[in-house]
């Protein structure tokens, strides 16, 4: 495991999402997470950052998003924080992903569902007047690790 957490502070500019994904990708590679799981975690973190940009900051690109990446022998944890408008509690609640009937397919609301789908533990903490924080934790299991592929 790595001795220290990694802290990133990035502007709420969607052009920077590729940079965030790149950092997360390399960090997970260093930790030894299996490539399929890496792609899922990168997607879920991207969704959390996109939510901050779209909803908390309502498209403003000069605000700040902070990511903290930490890992232990038991888990990988990523926290995404913003100082924007708090997300209504019902928006972050767990709703299982089920195959919809064709007439029920909706284009929105998928990001939070994907975050819950990918991580073992997800905690949304909207501030009372300002800010949001989502903490996403993935437990190490034999099927997650590169060494277990063989």
């Amino acid at each position, binding site marked *: 495991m790595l001795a220290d957490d990694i802290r990133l502070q990035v502007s709420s500019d969607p052009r920077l999402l590729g940079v965030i994904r790149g950092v997360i990708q390399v960090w997970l590679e260093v930790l030894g997470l299996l490539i399929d799981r890496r792609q899922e975690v990168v*997607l879920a973190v991207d969704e959390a950052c*996109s939510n901050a940009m*779209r909803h908390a900051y309502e498209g403003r690109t000069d605000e700040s998003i902070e990511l903290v990446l930490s890992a232990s022998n038991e888990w990988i944890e990523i926290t995404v924080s913003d100082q924007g408008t708090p997300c209504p509690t019902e928006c972050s609640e767990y709703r299982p992903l089920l*195959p*919809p009937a064709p007439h029920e397919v909706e284009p929105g609301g998928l990001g939070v569902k*994907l975050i819950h789908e990918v991580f073992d533990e997800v905690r949304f903490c909207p501030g009372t007047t300002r800010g949001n924080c989502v903490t996403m934790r993935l437990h190490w299991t034999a099927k997650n690790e590169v060494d277990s592929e063989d």
Partner: protein
Amino acid sequence: MIVVEGDIDLYSSPELRSAVLKAVPKAITGVGVHLGGVTYMDSSGVATLVEGLRSAKEHDKTFTLLAPSTAVMKVLELARLDSVFEVRSA
């Protein structure tokens, strides 16, 4: 046919959305979106494809995903939406 390459995310999906929603009403029988060169797709990309599918149904047209990359199929499967779309390998 609409050919998409690179990453589809919050930054790039509005351009794809615009292209798809313009193409659907003009299509004779339907729209094909070639996704073989897509290296990454997030939920905004999925939402764009769902919007395209709904628009196509409203216009009585087909909406087909052509040669979707593994990155595209992975997110569609994760979202349980892989069976919603008509997919062709080429």
